């Protein structure tokens, strides 16, 4: 997966909340078109970053065995546009998690300034709709989670270090 709209998790509490950062940089090619001479981080990509933060948090709750997809942006409010040099801090909390999906609230801050507020609805796709057992190849998913620091900062619901789920480790190992 190259569609990374967060750089790293800085906090991750299983089933409850997570924080990730996104550094906005002039090295991102799309900022030169959005807009020429006036680079602004597209708000849609802020939503994507918050969805990645919240989606991985929701997926971890079920050991990454559900096929979690962003189903709906229930609410999105932006207070200003992020520009190169800004560090966006995405904080998400799980409002509710069900068998069929989850509702997650999130904010984006630059320093103390509230940049965006969202509420996102995630759905768990059935295997028949998704067309496969997993949306990600297990080895790639595990590599991505490690890259983002999920297991470095992650804590389980008892506050103990978060371990790689045995099922994911086995699936990734079987592929390697």
């Amino acid at each position, binding site marked *: 997966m190259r569609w990374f709209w967060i750089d790293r998790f800085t906090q991750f509490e299983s089933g409850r909340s997570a924080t990730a950062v996104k550094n906005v940089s002039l090295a991102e090619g799309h900022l030169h078109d959005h807009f020429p001479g006036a680079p602004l981080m597209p708000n849609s990509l802020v939503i994507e970053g918050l969805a990645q933060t919240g989606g991985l948090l929701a997926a971890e709750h079920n050991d990454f065995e559900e096929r979690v997809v962003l*189903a*709906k942006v*229930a*609410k999105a409010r932006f207070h200003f546009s992020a520009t190169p040099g800004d560090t966006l801090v995405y904080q998400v909390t799980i*409002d*509710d998690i*069900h068998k*069929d*999906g989850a*509702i997650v609230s999130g904010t984006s801050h630059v320093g103390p300034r509230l940049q965006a507020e969202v*509420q996102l*609805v995630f*759905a768990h796709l059935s295997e028949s709709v998704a067309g496969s057992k997993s949306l990600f190849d297990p080895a790639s998913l595990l590599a991505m989670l490690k890259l983002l620091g999920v297991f470095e900062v992650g804590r389980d619901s008892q506050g103990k270090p978060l371990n790689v789920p045995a099922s994911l480790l086995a699936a990734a190992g079987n592929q390697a």
Partner: protein
Amino acid sequence: MAATKEEVYTKVQGALVDALGVDEEEVTPEARLVGDLGAESIDFLDIVFRLEKAFDIKIPRGELFPEDILTNAQYVQNGRVTPEGLKQLEARMPFADLTNFSANPVVQDFGNLLTVQDMCRYVESKVGA
């Protein structure tokens, strides 16, 4: 303690305002979820989540929207629900008024059936209001 009908209505209204981004005044008892409030298929998942949370109830899949009947060849022929299928719908959806739908039971129109009042009646049946 059982909720009153007014409490049910207020909470259903709140769930629909949040899920559909509509104003409170638009959520009248007669308003149709799809036709008047602009609900799309994915919104129903959102609505179910919010009702479950607001009332601390479980809404099994297919109970509020019995999609299994509408996709069952036994109950649908040429895009219309058969008399047998209508009986099934009536049995499964005592909270909904199927009179108009039964007169011309085109499956496509089914999504536009439910009103705010139907949702309230459904919740009332779950919480004993």
